[in-house]
């Protein structure tokens, strides 16, 4: 495959239809290994759909998705997650009956070297690994300041905490590329500032690429190095925050006159 060596993910001429509706068409996106890329666009522009195509929830009807140079179209979502793409959901999808701790534990399953027989028979390696699992969950929770709610049911937390738990859960899959779908939604100003700090921290500390969908311009403009703009499934602009902020078609389609 002819993918640029520095890119972790490339969408080539990607498109998808739902019945008669073309949700995304001929989309070209390239994400470098250390990019923090923003994706914005009006409601229903196709942003979440792009996430779903990348993660295998939807199959693109056209084009290819290259992860690390390899076409991942057709792979199952769990295989794609296994390759190193983690995500959050626009409508929070935490495991409702599990605690915060256990929600994150689920993500570590794919990193386990032990399986059915080890866990049922409790062989020595099992205990060793369980200790490691616990340590890494606790470490992550500390970074995100969620240790105090560790044993609470994830879905009884306030909205903002749930969003952060989702990010931690995605991170725990040890992704190379992290997809965040409106992580700031439902957060207040203070929390948003804190979120921006965390996203930057995650990128540095875990050394990964991030693709971010967000309607809050302070957040997007504040942390993204580059931004893609979708409208009606088509990419209408791409560039650094300043250029996007002043792009006329972006203002017309998305930002409105009094841009943030």
């Amino acid at each position, binding site marked *: 495959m002819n993918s640029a060596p520095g890119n972790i993910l490339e969408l080539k001429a990607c498109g998808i239809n739902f019945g008669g509706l073309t949700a995304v068409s001929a989309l070209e996106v390239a994400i470098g290994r250390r990019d923090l890329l923003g994706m914005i666009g009006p409601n229903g522009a196709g942003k979440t759909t792009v996430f779903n195509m990348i*993660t*295998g*929830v939807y199959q693109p009807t056209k084009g290819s998705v290259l992860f690390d140079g390899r076409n991942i179209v057709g792979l*199952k*979502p*769990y295989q794609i*997650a*296994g390759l190193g793409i*983690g*995500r959050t*959901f626009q409508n929070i*999808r*935490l*495991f*409702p*009956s*599990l605690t915060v701790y*256990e929600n994150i*534990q*689920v*993500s*570590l*399953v*794919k990193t*386990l070297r*032990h*399986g*059915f027989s*080890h*866990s*049922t*028979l*409790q062989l020595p390696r*099992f*205990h060793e*690994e*369980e*200790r490691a*699992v*616990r*340590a890494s969950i*606790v470490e992550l929770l500390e970074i995100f300041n969620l240790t105090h709610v560790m044993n609470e049911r994830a879905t009884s937390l306030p909205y903002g905490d749930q969003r952060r738990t989702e990010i931690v*859960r*995605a991170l*725990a*899959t040890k992704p190379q590329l992290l997809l965040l779908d409106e992580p700031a939604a439902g957060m207040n100003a203070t929390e948003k500032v804190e979120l921006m700090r965390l996203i930057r921290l995650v990128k540095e500390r875990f050394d990964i690429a991030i693709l971010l969908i967000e309607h809050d311009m302070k957040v997007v403009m504040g942390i993204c190095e580059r931004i893609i703009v979708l409208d009606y499934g088509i990419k209408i602009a791409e560039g650094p925050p300043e250029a996007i902020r002043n792009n006329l078609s972006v203002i017309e389609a998305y930002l409105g006159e009094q841009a943030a």
Partner: protein
Amino acid sequence: MGVHATKVVLLAAIAISFIVSLFQSQINPYFLQIIIYIGINIILATSLNLINGYAGQFSLGHAGFMALGGYTGAVVSTTLGATPGGSSAVIILPLALVLGGIVAALAGLLVGIPSLRLRGDYLAITTLGFGEIIRVVIQNLDFLGGARGFTGIPKLTNFFWVFSVVSITVFVISNLVNSSYGKGFLAVRDDEIAAQAMGINTTKYKVVAFVTGAFFAGVAGGLYAHFVSYINPQQFSFIRSIEIVVMVIVGGMGNTPGVIIAAALLTILPEALRPIAEYRMVIYSLSLVIIMITRPQGLFGRELSLRSLLGRLRKQAMPV
């Protein structure tokens, strides 16, 4: 130290089963029989709990797995000619049980496959269908006695075997669901899409749940056959499956201690109601309704959970 607690508990449980079984003849046979049924129902209910409670796959086919285990076991022990009390029983019974479990597990594999495409009530009806197919096929197999049933199975099952298997079942299943690996079952139950996005192979987990659950149901079937010494296909109809589902839900889905206690209570309750004869089942069914209305999360809700108990154990044991 504490990390091996569950193993110690297991060994202790088996040892106690052995010691108790030495005094088995002192127990009134009627009570012994109830106790044995309690044990068998615990195995059935905890194994179904893995499928229904933990992995969230609504299965109504457990009696079918039990039938396979029972009939396989019966064929094995009658072919090998085991006799109660004979020394050969010590080898033949475990062999019969394990083979019964394996045959049931293979069927579990087969039943697990539709679960990949079907959900909820559609899956329930499919598993019910599988169970009934198994029953009808046995009913038509002459070498298994057909509708007339299988007679002359040696009575090899005793307190020791039943409660050793109970201990092993509970040990395996609670270890499984309490391990990190086992969190995959819960994730599949709660949200398949999110589980997949976290790298969980949902297909594999569902099949593992079905196969493991079916295996233990098969073993329970074997224990049952070698206890009653006569089995016929009607004993394994979907009504039996429903009885097991009731135990799981009354106990609280995904709550192993609750399910164990429910299995025991729901075995004892109809016995306790015997004196009122014809009114017994009416009272029994009413109590079921009342239990559900007053304790909708199961008898014990979330308070009594092995997870929290073990969690506490582990916390003490592991410095973090």
